[in-house]
């Protein structure tokens, strides 16, 4: 695949890694923001191949993981209704709510459908005028333009049976929250490449300046991450704290103007709760009042929601980067991808599932003992 395979070249990867080793003279702690970046680092063993003192702290950039439990429970309460077709990105289906998840509801007969694009949800609404179609609009800034277009399109078509359950979160406030924390150890960031493809990187300049942290806008392929880490460490070693762009093929400083305008026409910035972290002011999007008619939370009365996280789940500390899955007592035992206690284990971009799939910290064999296959002695 063009513009993908080239960034997976193992010879160049090793050379970048050698250069990182050559220039690193001190211990450093870097945070990669995006779950997709975490996944690549763990899957390719890049974080374990870095110089001994360099630590990658995994950031909260997994929208599935940080969608507040209340929103999941609301989604479940809406999805069980017989008049509703509940549409969602595939990632959300296995995320545990307080008592169940969307996939289980689907197994029990709820009309839950996976969509690839929010426009598919609008199409379903147009094709099913006698049903209520709800779309679970989650994501970071990368996904907001698509979700905004779905609302705009539904408005254009005059659909009265389409609503969105919004749970959008923003990266820069989360970075500040992490930097403000007294237990923060992050000294540099790899910013999320596709978030920046939409938003540009102007918002990161004041952060780099105020907290004196290098921020490198980084892509998602192994060579992107290695190059981004190299650039960040070069800054750290020379005492600089600037915003740089590794992902030059996809990101410009101003980002995508059309996308940003479309988002601000439909959404407003407001406070948002992050699952496991708590309330971060001005860290999310809400529908503007003029689009209030498309708000699923207004259309459906879901009653009082009492959320309950599993007490053994330390997702909050994982998402803040203060602990790793290896610090979790339930990891690999009570909690696994087949029976996740929390979101980071179920999301393919979550830290816990990345670690588990890579077999980290698990005793072998961890595979379930399987039914016996054909034996040779019969």
């Amino acid at each position, binding site marked *: 695949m063009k513009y993908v395979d080239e960034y997976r070249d193992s010879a160049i990867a090793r050379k970048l890694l050698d250069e990182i080793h*050559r220039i690193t003279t001190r211990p450093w702690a870097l945070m990669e923001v995006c779950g*997709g970046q975490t996944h690549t680092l763990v899957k390719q063993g890049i974080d374990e191949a870095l110089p001994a003192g360099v630590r990658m702290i995994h950031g909260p950039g997994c929208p599935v993981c940080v969608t507040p439990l209340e929103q999941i429970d609301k989604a479940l309460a809406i999805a069980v209704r017989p008049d509703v077709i509940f549409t969602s990105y595939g990632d959300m289906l296995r995320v545990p709510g307080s008592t169940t998840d969307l996939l289980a509801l689907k197994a029990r007969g709820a009309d839950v459908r996976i969509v690839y694009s929010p426009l598919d949800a609008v199409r379903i609404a147009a094709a099913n005028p006698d049903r209520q179609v709800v779309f679970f609009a989650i994501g970071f800034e990368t996904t907001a333009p*698509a979700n905004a277009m779905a609302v705009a399109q539904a408005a254009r078509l005059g659909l009265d049976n389409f609503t969105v359950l919004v749970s959008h979160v923003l990266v820069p406030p989360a970075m500040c929250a992490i930097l403000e924390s007294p237990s923060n150890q992050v000294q540099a960031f790899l910013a999320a490449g596709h978030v920046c493809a939409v938003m540009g990187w102007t918002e990161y300049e004041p952060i780099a300046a105020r907290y004196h942290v290098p921020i490198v806008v980084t892509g998602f392929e192994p060579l992107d991450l290695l190059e981004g880490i190299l650039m960040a460490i070069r800054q750290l070693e020379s005492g600089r704290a600037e*915003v740089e*762009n590794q992902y*030059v093929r*996809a990101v410009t400083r101003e980002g995508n103007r059309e996308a940003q305008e479309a988002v601000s026409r439909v959404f407003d910035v407001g406070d948002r709760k992050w699952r496991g972290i708590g309330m971060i002011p001005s860290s999310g999007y809400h529908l503007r009042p003029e689009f209030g008619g498309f708000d699923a939370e207004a259309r459906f009365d879901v009653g009082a929601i009492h959320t309950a996280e599993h007490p053994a789940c330390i997702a909050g500390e994982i998402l803040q980067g203060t602990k790793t899955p290896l610090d979790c007592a339930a990891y690999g035992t009570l909690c696994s991808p087949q029976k996740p206690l929390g979101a980071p284990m179920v999301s393919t971009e979550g830290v816990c599932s990345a670690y588990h799939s890579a077999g980290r910290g698990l005793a072998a064999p961890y595979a379930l003992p399987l039914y016996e296959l054909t034996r040779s002695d019969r």
Partner: protein
Amino acid sequence: MCLGIPGKVVEIRDDGAMRMATIDYGGARKEACLAYVPEVGLGDYVIVHVGFAISQLDEEEALRTLELLRMIDEEGMAMELGSAAGNGGGGALTAPAAGSAPPPGAS
């Protein structure tokens, strides 16, 4: 957070108010919305996320970076880290501007 993959625009059509395209990812084709990349045309590459092109892939930049990456020798980066003018920094391997002094450092 962002499963965005690069693909080539092989067909464009108008779907009411939205400009839609067929994107080829190297043998698999799927539709995507071009509303956010109005300057993109046939044959261009875009980054697609949930059915929307969010950015045009700058092929020149991509090829330039790959060239520089391939030129890395064992004694380390011959290239000095530089800021492409006015762009706030562009890649670990920005070549020095033509006519400037050779970069200090390894090799």
